[in-house]
């Protein structure tokens, strides 16, 4: 079990007097003091660039940076040489599309994906497909927006070179069966690229077991600072890939003729001074999550999600778009009130949710609605948060939404 009261004390933003009810962790998570302190410590105690100074502070920063990489690798059960630090999932996924996809795809090849993808997962592949005349195909989703193994198997064929999929949908919260999808993809000699941004913060991920080729995630959704993320790739692919950026720190030597000797994986991908504070913060976030236990995180969210769904079902003015979801992402609307108006009304009651189409624009075709309210839960949320959310939802009317602006 997870001690929410104790956890909430660790989050400074939850300990102000404004009664914030934060239900938008799928956009970004709040940050615990441990993470904030790790960032502060870097600036207050050992500011120095990494891997290029012969003095004590630089060695200390370098050592902590390298340890952070090992910590991340250990968290997802892979080798530290397979972990590339990026600015976030978006940068990670673009890097795979441009530096791997462009290289291995040929005209006529198929990129198989889904209609639940986040813009950051699919837009780079649209660009790649355009450049080399590859085709984009979609796995048919079932009526709840889920990829089933059956549908995936049917959609798979030998022209499919790359499968691009999210691990957990950022709108509907469904968890895709990645391990099976990877197996089927590999049976067809394809590669699978997974957007793990909404999965990593909420469940224990064993990348070795999932056997995916690439996996991307962001720090800021898992308690870490913004501006840092990870690209995991199997060592054999990373070694073949060229970096997207060239510059300091990623090369061993170069000459006037333009000959460049790149460093090894993963350093060759990290040109320029990275977000050192971000990486150290990410490591602290992982320590924090590990202390709580990812099993406890998952159990807490599933319990809250179940509670929220039960309470939502009791309301007759609410439509739920993913009633069978188990994760902490719930998509809904209040009947006859535009999502943004409801979100503003919730904000008036100190409840933070997201309204709109959540960067997954093509999902509209699946759930037959252009925009929703997304409520997303995390370790610091309580049943009391949900009770208040439900109370305000029950109470909302178009008139009350309008009254806020007159």
């Amino acid at each position, binding site marked *: 079990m997870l001690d929410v009261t104790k956890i909430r004390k660790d989050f400074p933003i939850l300990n102000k007097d404004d009664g914030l009810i934060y239900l938008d962790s799928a956009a970004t998570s709040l940050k615990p003091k441990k993470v904030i302190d790790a960032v502060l410590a870097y600036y207050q105690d050992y500011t120095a660039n990494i891997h290029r100074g012969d003095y004590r502070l630089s060695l200390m920063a370098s050592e902590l940076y390298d340890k952070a990489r090992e910590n991340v690798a250990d968290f997802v059960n892979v080798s530290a040489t397979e972990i590339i630090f990026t600015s976030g999932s978006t940068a990670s996924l673009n890097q795979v599309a441009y530096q791997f996809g462009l290289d291995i795809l040929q005209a006529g090849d198929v990129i198989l994906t889904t209609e639940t993808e986040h813009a950051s997962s699919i837009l780079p592949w649209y660009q790649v497909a355009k450049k080399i005349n590859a085709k984009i195909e979609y796995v048919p989703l079932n009526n709840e927006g889920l990829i089933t193994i059956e549908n995936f198997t049917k959609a798979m064929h030998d022209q499919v070179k790359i499968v691009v999929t999210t691990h957990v949908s950022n709108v509907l919260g469904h968890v895709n069966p990645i391990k099976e999808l990877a197996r089927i993809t590999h049976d067809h000699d394809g590669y699978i690229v997974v957007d793990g941004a909404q999965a990593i913060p909420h469940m224990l991920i064993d990348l070795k077991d999932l056997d995916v080729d690439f996996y991307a995630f962001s720090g800021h959704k898992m308690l870490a600072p913004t501006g840092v993320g990870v690209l995991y790739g199997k060592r054999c692919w990373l070694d073949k890939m060229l970096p997207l950026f060239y510059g300091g720190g990623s090369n061993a030597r170069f000459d006037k003729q333009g000959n460049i000797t790149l460093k090894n994986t993963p350093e060759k991908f990290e040109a320029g001074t990275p977000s050192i504070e971000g990486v150290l913060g990410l490591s602290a976030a992982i320590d924090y999550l590990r202390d709580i236990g990812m099993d406890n995180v998952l159990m807490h969210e599933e319990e809250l999600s179940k509670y929220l769904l039960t309470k939502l079902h009791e309301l007759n003015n609410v439509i739920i778009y993913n009633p069978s979801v188990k994760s902490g992402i719930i998509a809904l609307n209040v009947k006859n009130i535009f999502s943004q108006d409801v979100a*503003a009304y919730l904000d008036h009651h100190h409840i933070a949710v997201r309204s*709109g189409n959540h960067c997954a624009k093509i999902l509209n075709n699946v759930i037959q609605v*252009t*925009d929703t309210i997304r409520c997303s839960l995390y370790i610091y949320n309580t049943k009391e948060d949900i009770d208040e959310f439900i109370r305000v939802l029950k109470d909302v009317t178009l008139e009350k939404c309008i009254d806020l*602006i007159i």
Partner: protein
Amino acid sequence: MSEMLKDPMILRQLIMDHYEFPRNHGLVDDTTYSQKHMASESCIDDIVVQVKIIDDKIIDIRFDGVACTISTASTSMMTELLIDKTRLEAKKIIEAYFMMIDNQRYDEAILNEAIAFSNVYKQPNRIKCATIGWKAIKELIEEGEVNE
């Protein structure tokens, strides 16, 4: 009229009415109209505004799209206010509206029921909603002048 427009109940009813029964709603397939698609301002509101101007006079305005209460109602009121106005008159009204949204001094009389949005500045996250249709018509009028 202006006294009535100070009553919050009346203002609420006005906004509700323009939201539920938007005026000049639905686009026309007519090349004599110029049109503006306002989709890149935010990822929620997505509206199209059309205008027909002949001899410096706004003959008609139409709009449609996916939008919240405030976007829909403010755009609906805009169409009613600006149809049959000359370009110069329309520009004055538009300027007054943006002054109001910016919480500056403005000419109440020419805004008529659009003053229902005079307090939007207190909700900064809704300013985009209250101005999306107005920005569209402003740009359409300006572009029309450049083209002549």
